[in-house]
């Protein structure tokens, strides 16, 4: 956590996070109003909690930005679908360039647990799972300790806070694969199957884990719930600076002076994040473009710096806010190389279920590899565009390949000249440039 000078804005998500790399222990968490949100929620009806979250305008922080309360409201009544409900926390943070959920889990695990308890109460779940990345060993350790603490404190387990509500939270360590972040693939992984996405409809809220109604929420989304419930939806709505509500973890990586992650109001302009919080570009580097929220979002350019980081604003600019962690493409790095790197990632992480993704992405990689090494052909750029278009939304089974198409199509759009230079140059024009650069000391 590299927060700059004290904020003028509230930072409910990160208020317990200090400079020390420790997890907030339960007593300190409780001293700081911890678990008040849960206890308040338990006094409300589940429906009232859902209404409040929906009215607060909390949108899913995993990247898709769907209204969280609305998502919950799709869980059918017991009369229509009897049996258990499940809550699943998606802690499978694996999107290239994304580094926000790990921070919350490692440093303030009780915030997540409290958020989960509120969500579970709202949807009527008595069992919840945290599906966590296998590589997040420290977060796993700290979450498990927090679960034990909360259980000992009567905040998990049977009859929480003397209420009739009971909840058990289990940690499930993922065995890898990016596709597990897709919520239905995640459910298959949790069921001990191959993580192949499922057809929607039926949505998980109707038929999820073991065919029962299930809600899957991202870590950061759930962490918003305690203060949302504590302070009410009106307070929460006013946290945002633009149309979207609440605060959000924003981050910047790449060749900036002060890469990091900060809790900022929704709608904070991109320029402010990059120039003020991340300290601007390193000396000798210019901003060529950026991925606003992870490897599956479209490139944007310096022309877009004054956009507000809001789901719809970034959407209208032709990209997605995604996870809100910005990756900077500098002028010494090859856009084609970065695109190839991303496509390699997506090709490898394809689950192998549908054709455009399974067989299209390796083909894209083959073409980009040829271009990068100077064996490209004039028609390759059109072919790339054709292949990327073929992987567009609706054409594939899930969002993985459309996510791969986003940086590819936008790179072809904004950096086409650089692609063409590879053809003319007979190789990567940035190679010498890169060789001349030294790694930062």
């Amino acid at each position, binding site marked *: 956590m*590299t927060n700059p000078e004290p904020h003028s804005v509230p930072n409910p998500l990160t208020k317990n996070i200090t400079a020390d790399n420790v997890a907030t222990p339960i007593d300190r968490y409780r001293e700081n109003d911890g678990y008040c949100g849960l206890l308040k929620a338990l006094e409300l009806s589940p429906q009232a909690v859902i209404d409040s979250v929906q009215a607060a305008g909390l949108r899913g922080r995993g990247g898709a930005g769907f209204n969280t309360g609305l998502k919950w409201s799709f869980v059918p009544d017991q009369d229509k679908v009897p049996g258990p409900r499940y809550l699943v926390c998606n802690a499978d*943070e*694996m*999107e*290239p*360039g*994304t*580094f926000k*959920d*790990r921070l919350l889990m490692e440093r303030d695990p009780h915030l997540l647990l409290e958020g989960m308890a509120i969500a579970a109460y709202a949807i009527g779940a008595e069992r919840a799972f945290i599906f966590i*990345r*296998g*590589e*997040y*060993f*420290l977060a796993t350790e700290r979450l498990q300790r927090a679960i034990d603490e909360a259980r000992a404190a009567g905040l998990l387990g049977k009859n929480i806070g003397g209420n009739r509500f009971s909840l058990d939270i*289990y940690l*499930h*360590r*993922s*065995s*890898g*694969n*990016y596709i597990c972040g897709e919520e239905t693939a995640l459910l298959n*992984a949790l*069921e*001990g*199957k*191959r*993580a192949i996405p499922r057809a929607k409809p039926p949505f998980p809220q109707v038929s999820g884990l*073991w065919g029962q109604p299930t809600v899957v929420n991202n870590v950061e989304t759930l962490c918003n719930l305690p203060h949302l419930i504590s302070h009410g939806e009106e307070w929460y709505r006013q946290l945002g600076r633009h149309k979207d509500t609440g605060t959000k973890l924003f*981050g*910047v*990586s*790449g*060749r900036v002076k002060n*890469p*990091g*992650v900060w809790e900022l109001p929704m709608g904070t302009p991109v320029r402010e994040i990059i120039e003020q919080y991340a300290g601007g570009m390193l000396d000798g580097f210019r901003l060529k473009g950026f*991925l606003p929220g992870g*490897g599956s979002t479209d490139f944007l350019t310096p022309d877009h710096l004054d956009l507000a980081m809001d789901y719809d604003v970034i959407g209208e600019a032709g990209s997605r806010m995604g996870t809100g*962690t910005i*990756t*900077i*493409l*500098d002028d010494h*790095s090859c856009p084609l*190389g*970065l695109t190839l*790197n*991303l496509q390699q*990632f997506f090709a*490898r*992480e394809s689950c192998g279920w549908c054709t455009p993704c399974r067989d299209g992405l390796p083909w894209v990689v083959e073409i980009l590899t040829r271009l990068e090494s100077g064996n490209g052909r004039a028609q390759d750029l059109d072919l790339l565009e054709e292949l990327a278009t073929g992987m567009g939304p609706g054409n594939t089974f899930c969002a993985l390949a459309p996510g791969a198409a986003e940086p590819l199509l936008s790179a072809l759009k904004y950096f086409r000249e650089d692609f063409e230079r590879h053809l003319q140059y007979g190789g990567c024009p940035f190679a010498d440039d890169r060789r001349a650069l030294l*790694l*930062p*000391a």
Partner: protein
Amino acid sequence: MKIANTSEFLSAEEIAEIEREFEIYPTRRAAGLEALRIVQKHRGWVSDEALQALAAFLQVDTAELESLATYYQLIFRRPVGKAVVYCCNSASCWLMGSRDLQRQLQTRLQVRPGQTTDDGKITLLETPCLGDCDQAPVIMVGTAGGTYEMHRRLTTEKLEELVNDLQKVYGGSSDEP
């Protein structure tokens, strides 16, 4: 090879841990992925024999378990070294020079990603984003003992130091005679 007796092959500790998972999952089959992870935690990797023993224990076909084991990248079906070096090569690390670090590692250890040093001590793997992009480039080192350590903001010099440390602790071939 057929395993005559599952419980002879799996340790009591492994069995106890797997049985704990049965309480969470509705069927033995559903705990298969967890069981693979547990066996790997104890053995470093999942051998053919372990796979068969586990399949018998879970009452599933070996092929069913193999289907899971070959799907998930963190399940190892080949032996790995005492230390596994996960070299992040995703976007942010790539931008910050992870290719050079990886090349440096390959040269120093004389292995390619997916391979283990001749002495069987150190395995090099490429990994997707480790979620530490503001500290790029990063490398994670996992050990047979189940510990993981992050190495952040790496440079050629820091990596050189890290490899030296690893070789001191775990061995591993060097490009020097």
